[in-house]
């Protein structure tokens, strides 16, 4: 069992800068937890506190039940994959992987067996005698993973490990990391700012903002029930349309919007959220509770499988994005009406941005 538990963890830097403001996260043994958020949200600091590279100002960090706050990184039984890989440039691939084991006085033949096994899994056996600079980006990435694997640690930590790779390689490595983690069953904490990476990798997805956890849970739960406008706009691409609406007797009210009867808009108004992919072109009468939006098309982006349509709501309001399947035959300048059903509508508090209702 190697559960990772963060209990009210805070990090205050010199000059009273609060990078992490009381975070509770539990990563069950063997789970893959992804921390995602914009830069400066505290996700990397949190990871580095688990690694022991930053001190914890207050709160507890527990790995496999034991408090590790005061332990050196080497004593925590963790392994880390860095953004720039941090391979020792003067050591061969083999030595890079063996270094940590040698420092722990692991017997020579065991080191050899473990390094060869990791190399086999990662398919880097032919490069074992090379120096990091003789490797491609993807190969270096594998060595960095290998260095983590040979240690057989309780926890893997990943600090944006794919951000230095090109788009194609990133997708390939993403799939491999996931497969590898499944196969080894090692508890993992992974930091990224890429929401797609976060969605595809995570068992538990933690969205962070300004040093706090905005929402944590299964990726699809976050997609379907974002707890705040921040999560709503961070998860999913293109981001959710967030339309400020006023309250009226019949439901929400704003120029260009129809329907929405029975939507519990508070008296002071609210923010209505609709994902671009949930908007469909319609000229029929709206079903019960559904919302219709009409706007003049200002831009059309056809990418083949789908088409993105842009335009200001009601001709002058908030810019709306609709994601329509296939090739939508729309010309800029023509008016269009789209609709979303009741179960695809999200309502958020006007001021706090918190979700209203379930």
């Amino acid at each position: 069992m190697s559960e990772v538990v963060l209990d009210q963890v805070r990090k205050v830097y010199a000059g009273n800068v609060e990078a992490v403001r009381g975070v509770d996260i539990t990563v069950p043994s063997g789970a893959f937890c992804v921390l995602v958020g914009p830069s400066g949200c505290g996700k990397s600091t949190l990871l580095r506190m688990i690694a022991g590279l930053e001190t914890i100002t207050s709160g507890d960090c527990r790995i496999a039940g034991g408090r590790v706050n005061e332990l050196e990184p080497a004593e925590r039984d963790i392994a880390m994959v860095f953004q720039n890989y941090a391979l020792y440039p003067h050591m061969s691939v083999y030595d890079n992987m063996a270094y940590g084991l040698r420092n722990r006085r692991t017997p020579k033949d065991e080191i050899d067996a473990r390094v060869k096994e990791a190399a086999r899994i990662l398919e880097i056996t032919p490069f074992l005698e090379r120096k990091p600079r003789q490797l491609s980006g993807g190969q270096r990435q594998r060595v960095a993973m290998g260095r983590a694997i040979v240690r057989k640690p309780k926890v893997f930590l990943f600090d944006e490990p794919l951000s230095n790779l090109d788009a194609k390689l990133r997708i390939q490595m993403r799939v491999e990391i996931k497969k590898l983690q499944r196969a080894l069953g090692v508890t993992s904490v992974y930091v990224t700012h890429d929401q797609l990476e976060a969605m595809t990798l995570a068992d538990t997805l933690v969205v962070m903002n300004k040093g706090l956890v905005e929402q944590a849970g299964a990726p699809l739960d976050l997609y379907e029930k974002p707890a705040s406008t921040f999560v709503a706009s961070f998860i999913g691409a293109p981001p959710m349309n967030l339309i400020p609406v006023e309250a009226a007797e019949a439901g929400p009210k704003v120029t260009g919007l129809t329907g929405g009867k029975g939507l519990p808009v508070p008296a002071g108004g609210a923010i209505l959220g609709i994902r671009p992919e949930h908007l469909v072109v319609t000229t029929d009468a709206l079903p019960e509770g559904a919302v219709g939006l009409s706007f003049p098309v200002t831009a059309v982006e056809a990418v083949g499988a789908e088409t993105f349509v842009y335009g200001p709501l009601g001709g002058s309001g908030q810019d709306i994005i609709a994601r329509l399947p296939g090739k939508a035959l729309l010309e800029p300048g023509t008016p269009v009406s789209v609709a979303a059903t009741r179960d695809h509508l999200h309502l958020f508090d006007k001021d706090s941005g918190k979700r209203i209702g379930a």
Partner: protein
Amino acid sequence: MVERKTIFSYLPHLILLIGIAVVAFPVYVAFVASTWDPATISNGQMPLRPGPHFLENYYQTIFVGTSRTTREPVGGMMFNSLVMALTIAIGKIAISIISAFAIVYFRFPFRMTAFWVIFVTLMLPVEVRIYPTYKIVSDLGLLDSYAGLTIPLIASATATLLFRQFFMTVPDELVEASKIDGAGPMQFFRDTLLPLSITSIAALFVIQFIYGWNQYLWPLLITTRDSMQTIVIGIKKMIVTQDALTEWQIAMATAVLAMLPPVLVVILMQRLFVKGLVETEK
């Protein structure tokens, strides 16, 4: 770029060749003089081609020395110069790299004070504190010793600054990876930082070897015994004010021998030399 070929296209080459010739001329003359007999030189009729006494003159220079002035074999002087140059170069690198390591990779009280104490020595070249330094070395009983010759010259702000600058470019993640791999500070220094610094160390070695070999004022003060003389001092002592006494063929052979090691180092380690020169001046 397209530029019409004219007779002027060859002008740069001509200028450079003249430049090289002018720069090389004094050394060539010295070499020629080292291959003639004293009579040919002193009557002012020395031809501009090497003479027949090459082996004889160099044998005398290295193993016997001048017959009238210092009478020290130059071979011994070269050995002294070599000891001095190597000690200064290695000593400077050793004490600078560890002090830069302390300043960059630790946080401790008086860290910046230590940095400035070292930095200010840039402004205290030996030339401005000649006699007080001499007095200390003499009080410590280090006159006419290799220690007195070298130790006062191995403190170096430039080398410390160079290493500090290089360490700043080493990614922090390597330290973190080392920590996770269970390496302590000295292990990180030995296993990672030192191997990464090899080029800087080599470049600095080339520059400091030349610096050490060419020292003049300091050995002039510190050495009184002929057997402690360095080759650069030796030449100077061979040239006597009464010209008739100067054995020019020996002096010039000594000059050639004095130039040979540092010049070879520069030419053979050209890349390191240029790197060292550019970096130490930053």
